[in-house]
């Protein structure tokens, strides 16, 4: 789902401008599961899991949301989407402006909203 979102017309150019995208298949890629375990450590949650690193491989932020540490997965819910946007804000560096992150946030809301389960 995240992959589908990152390929959208509004988001893709901004995303590619600011971040190098890597997809690791933990089942098929050699060393994929080990790399996932190494970068994730003891943090909770399964797949999909994401982490943003700097060019030296140092972690900036992960998909384990603050403060409760739950993995946002997809993301789909308002809280999950908010954390994903926070991840982008913390890691945009000098390449992507605040307005561009806001545009991605709006695009994520448009993408995620129809996929949310109705609240009872």
């Amino acid at each position: 789902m995240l992959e589908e979102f990152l390929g959208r017309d509004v988001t893709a150019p901004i995303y590619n401008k600011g971040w190098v995208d890597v997809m690791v298949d933990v089942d098929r890629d050699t060393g994929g599961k080990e790399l996932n375990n190494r970068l994730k450590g003891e943090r909770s949650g399964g797949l999909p899991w994401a982490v943003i690193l700097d060019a030296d491989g140092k972690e900036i932020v992960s998909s384990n949301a603050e403060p409760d540490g739950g993995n946002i997965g997809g993301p789909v819910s308002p809280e999950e989407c908010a954390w994903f946007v926070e991840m982008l804000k913390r890691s945009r560096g000098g390449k992507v402006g605040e307005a561009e992150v806001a545009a991605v946030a709006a695009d994520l809301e448009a993408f995620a909203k129809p996929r949310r389960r109705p609240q009872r």
Partner: protein
Amino acid sequence: MNRKLSLLPLTLLLPACASTEQAAQAAPVLASAASPMAVEVVEASARANVHNKRVLVVLNKEGEDLAKNFKSDRAVSRKLLYEVETVSLPATAGSHWNWQEDASGAVLLACSGKELARFGADELASDAVIGKLQPHFCEPADANQKLGDAMAEAKKTGRNILIRFDAPW
């Protein structure tokens, strides 16, 4: 209705497939107005590029659905899920591959669009399909190589790296 594109996106024409083995095999394949490629194949090729898979274009003569055979066998469908992006089209949409319109079968493509193999319907019986396709599956990508390449790219371009961990299931 099959939408057709007269031109493939340039990103699909570059040999930017996930593994070096794929890159060695890949060659740019241009769709032309004379032999357009279905948009479903273009989209599947983009996904295959990201996920280190092949594209299996199943071409069905009228009244047939070869891909249904694959789905009915759990072991086969799981293996195919891991290794190929499957697209089902009517045989009449196979002009790009000079496909006979009254025959069912499949064409296996690299993510660049390069044809790797083609099969008749009798070669794709459920229990035989994996054996036929297996020699053409992609070599596994190396996760640490992907990360190393990403770090080099990030350093060169001043960007950070977003790593997504996932699985076909």
